[in-house]
């Protein structure tokens, strides 16, 4: 196998090197890639979409259709992880509880369970390390700031690097931080599975829905210019607002999917104990 691999690698590497000789030199401002299609984006995007960050303008407007499917890919991954891993039937296994006042650990075998109403006991993971005061406090303190930063990244994507994806991932990471620092149950209690599932669908639905709405308003699919009919702004600003709307959709979807994948992977789909 190793020899075969080496052969394939050398063969395709050689082919690629052979092709490199005809490339325009690196960083050449006169290469076809820099002169054919892209100058229009740089020249006109501010004028046509009122978005200074050209990458955002191209991502969400000129090639917005790609981005819709990109969000769909993420959604597919979330649904796939849910479908592959999620187990609904509770498995019989040992449970561990901690008696909060005394700090004693209870190991319960079989099906017996301490009633969930009991305030004195707390369910803990099988591989449990005592809570670290510093980690807990710092993460609890940081989470709101992470979320605030994520919202900034989404909202300010028009003017600076960032946008729905990055913001969505950071939002998702804020919940994942909770799951890592405390335990999975805390995170799931804060952000339930049902909400998560609905939000992942909702986010992509916002994106595709804005597109379909433009079609209903009589323009092409995803032509945000049509939004000017219902928004009190001009056609160029309507594009800018349309971009913001889809970025928000992307952010919601990506956040929900990241959390969904993490929860399923970290708990093997049982949603009881994680990392």
């Amino acid at each position, binding site marked *: 196998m190793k020899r075969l691999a080496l052969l394939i690698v050398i063969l395709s590497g050689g082919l690629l090197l052979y092709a490199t000789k005809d490339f325009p030199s690196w960083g050449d401002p006169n290469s076809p890639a820099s002169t054919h299609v892209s100058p229009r984006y740089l020249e006109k995007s501010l004028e046509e979409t009122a978005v*200074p960050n050209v990458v955002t303008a191209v*991502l969400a407007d000129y090639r917005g259709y790609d981005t819709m499917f990109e969000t769909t890919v993420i959604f597919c991954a979330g649904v796939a992880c849910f479908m592959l891993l999620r187990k609904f039937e509770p498995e019989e296994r040992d449970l561990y509880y901690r008696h909060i006042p005394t700090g004693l650990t209870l190991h319960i075998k079989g099906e017996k369970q301490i009633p969930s109403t009991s305030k004195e006991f707390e369910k803990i993971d099988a591989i449990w390390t005592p809570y670290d005061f510093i980690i807990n406090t710092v993460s609890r303190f940081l989470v709101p700031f992470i979320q605030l930063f994520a919202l900034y990244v989404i909202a300010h994507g028009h003017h600076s690097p960032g946008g729905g994806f990055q913001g969505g991932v950071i939002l998702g990471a804020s919940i994942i931080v909770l799951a890592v620092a405390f335990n999975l149950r805390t995170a799931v209690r804060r952000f339930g599975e049902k909400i998560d599932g609905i939000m992942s669908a909702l986010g992509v639905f916002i994106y595709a829905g804005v597109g379909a709405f433009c079609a209903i308003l009589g323009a092409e699919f995803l032509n945000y210019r049509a939004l000017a009919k219902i928004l009190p702004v001009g056609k160029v600003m309507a594009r800018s607002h349309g971009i913001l709307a889809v970025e928000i959709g992307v952010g919601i979807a990506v956040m929900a999917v990241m959390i969904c994948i993490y929860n399923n992977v970290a708990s093997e789909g049982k949603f009881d104990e994680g990392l």
Partner: protein
Amino acid sequence: MDFLLTHLVAKYNFWLYIILMMIGLYAMIAKNNLIKKLVGMNIFQTAIILFYVSIGSKRGGTIPIVEHIAGGGEHAINPTRYVNPLPHVLMLTAIVVSVSTFGVALALAIKIYQRYKTLEEDELLTRIRES
């Protein structure tokens, strides 16, 4: 000397992605562990992303965020001053696709491990043959 070195670095950049891609491809074919293959797959994808980003770069170009210039029109914006934004857009998509594939593949790997308690391909094949 300085010119030679910059040129070398520049060329190095275009070849690097081939080296990385071949590392990834080799890992995907030759490695026995499924997770290692996955890492190879990711390196392979990142190498392609590097290639695309290299297409977009321009000597002396800055980041593709257009400055607000009072009364600006098309005269105010000189496209050669900014790097090509299109490959960046495409690669955002590619990064997202790669993380999606990665997530699905990890889920599959966990499912395989749950059943066979191993991630080594040869052990998996012998266990399948036995059962």
